[in-house]
């Protein structure tokens, strides 16, 4: 487990987001350290997905700051940047409601992830010179390697829409990994998975952290998975952060239990 000496790589301060009159996020502070697995939990409609959308550039936050300090690079403020720029800077995500490129093959989905790390343009594509060829080869090779790691190498040429649900979720992770992130944001990766698949996911997320040195911030409703995986947990309710701490502390936090009243927290 990473200790508190590890440097902070994502620092979100006072994040706020208004949708017209609705304050979906209010003064949220969250930080993620290097090699850490952090969970963001909260009841439905608490503002978790909105938080992801704000830091990945899909929404521009109304107030607050999002600061990244990628390992070995300078810190910078990224709020207000376009999503593709944020991804290029090393933040990559999956979606709660799966957003794969349905009519592309599994391999091509991952190849799209390589887009921001490669550079050949239109002229290159038409002439197909040696530089383009070798880049294209590298894209295929790297994408295939990622699929092997995720365990989807059996279905590279399958259309994404033909994969079973659990595998679609894993493919989203593979696609996000292809962008070479230093921080991976997973929005309910276990939703719709059976217990066996959830176990495999637990293992996969650990492997991504340990072998690739990628930090992980995940939103999840499956408390068993959250408690088993996370180093630290943040809890939001009605757009406000109501608690943070190690899994053991969160489990017994009265505010959290109250927020989840009626929901099963001791699982």
């Amino acid at each position, binding site marked *: 487990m990473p200790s508190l000496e590890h440097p902070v790589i994502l620092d979100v301060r006072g994040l706020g987001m208004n949708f017209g009159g609705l304050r979906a996020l209010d003064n949220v502070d969250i930080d993620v350290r290097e090699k850490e697995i952090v969970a963001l939990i909260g009841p439905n409609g608490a503002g978790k997905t909105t938080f992801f959308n704000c830091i990945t550039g899909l929404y521009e936050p109304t107030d607050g700051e999002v600061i990244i300090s990628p390992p070995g690079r300078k810190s910078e403020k990224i709020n207000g940047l376009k999503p593709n720029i944020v991804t290029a800077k090393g933040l990559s995500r999956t979606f709660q409601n799966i957003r794969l490129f349905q009519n592309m093959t599994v391999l091509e989905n991952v190849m*799209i992830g390589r887009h921001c790390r490669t550079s050949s343009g239109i002229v290159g594509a038409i002439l197909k010179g040696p530089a383009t060829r070798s880049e294209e080869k590298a894209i295929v090779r790297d994408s295939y390697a990622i699929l092997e790691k995720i365990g989807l190498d059996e279905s590279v040429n399958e259309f994404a829409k033909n994969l079973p649900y659990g595998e679609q979720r894993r493919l989203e992770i593979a696609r996000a990994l292809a962008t070479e992130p230093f921080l991976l944001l997973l929005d309910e990766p276990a939703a719709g998975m059976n217990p066996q698949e959830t176990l495999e996911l637990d293992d996969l997320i650990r492997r991504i952290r340990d072998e690739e040195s990628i930090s992980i911030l995940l939103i999840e409703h499956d408390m068993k998975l959250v408690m088993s995986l996370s180093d630290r947990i943040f809890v939001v309710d009605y757009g406000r952060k109501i608690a943070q701490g190690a899994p053991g502390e969160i489990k017994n936090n009265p505010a959290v239990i109250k927020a989840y009243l009626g929901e099963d927290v001791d699982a």
Partner: protein
Amino acid sequence: MIKFSEIKKSLWVSLWFMFLTFPVMVIRVNTIENVIEWRWENMIFIGVGSFLFSFVWRYLLKQKEYGLKRAEEGGDIRPSLAQRILRDRKIFAPALTVVGIFALLFPYVFSLYQTNIMISALIFVMLGLGLNIVVGLAGLLDLGYVAFYAVGAYAYALLNYHFGLSFWILLPVGGALGMLFGILLGFPVLRLRGDYLAIVTLGFGEIIRLILENWNEFSFGPSGISNIPRPSFFGMSLSVHDSTIFIYYIMIALCIFTIFVVNRLQDSRIGRAWIALREDEVACQAMGIDKAKTKLTAFALGATWAGMGGVMFAAKTTFVNPASFTIWESIIILCIVVLGGMGSVVGVIIGALILILLPEYLRAFSEYRMLMFGILLVVMMVFRPGGIVSDVRRIYKFEGSGGAGKDA
């Protein structure tokens, strides 16, 4: 065994059709003798025809459902005939040779009239392939595509008229101007998608046509520009007969060039970005693709082919006027892409040949042209929503991996 309920269903269909078509097909007012003719025999034709047709229709529907069920059960999804031909080198190579030889000999085997029709069809092949980049690959519904076609045609006509520039200089210039206009249209519509984009592009197409129609000093208005020279052959000007054949070969070369470029683009980094944009705009951006840049390149490249197609059109007809660039042309090109198969090169070529050649050879039925167009599209959408040849994605092979190497 044909069940009784099936017969009953078909009976109802045929009764319904007889009732619907009664006013048009049976009653005719003879204005010369001022009497009404009752053509009951037509009603019999329609009754019997629709009775039988409804059987065929339901049979095909059942076949389709059966196919879908098999696909869902994870059973082998049979690739369509066209896809199998495309994938199997043993069939594909000879087929390509035959088509190639046919295309090369065409002007010597068939009459000048046929060659002219074929040139039109080839121009539309090129337009279809260009629009396929915008609609089929990038998923941007562009209903004003004909505007770029007009830009190319007028570029040749006007620049030749004022400055005497030759066809060979103006062919790339027409393409470049098309591209420029593509970017000009692209900027304001970057934020739009779907229906909104369709409406704005439709407006753009109409604006270009209205400008050409009304700005007399610039474009000579509705009367257009005539006496546009045909392409010269190494400085020599050719007779009408020879130059038609020459244009035919230029068109063949341009089509091959277009196919080559589109093929290369399709399986490139940019091509994949286009398809990703079509599939899911949000995910596409979140995966690091610059949405604005990708949309603009799609518009620009698509418009380039239209610009060159326009130059060819002006060179072929030696006359341009705004009437050749109506919304109707845009819709035909769009139909070519949809009917042929969005994103599929072979599909678009077949679509263009069908939609342009059939009406020419079925002149006898030209009154029913729109009707047949409509029926064709409805039938296609019901039975083959993906088009004649639906999009085939590239298969990658890897050594040492179990399922990966299989050929679908």
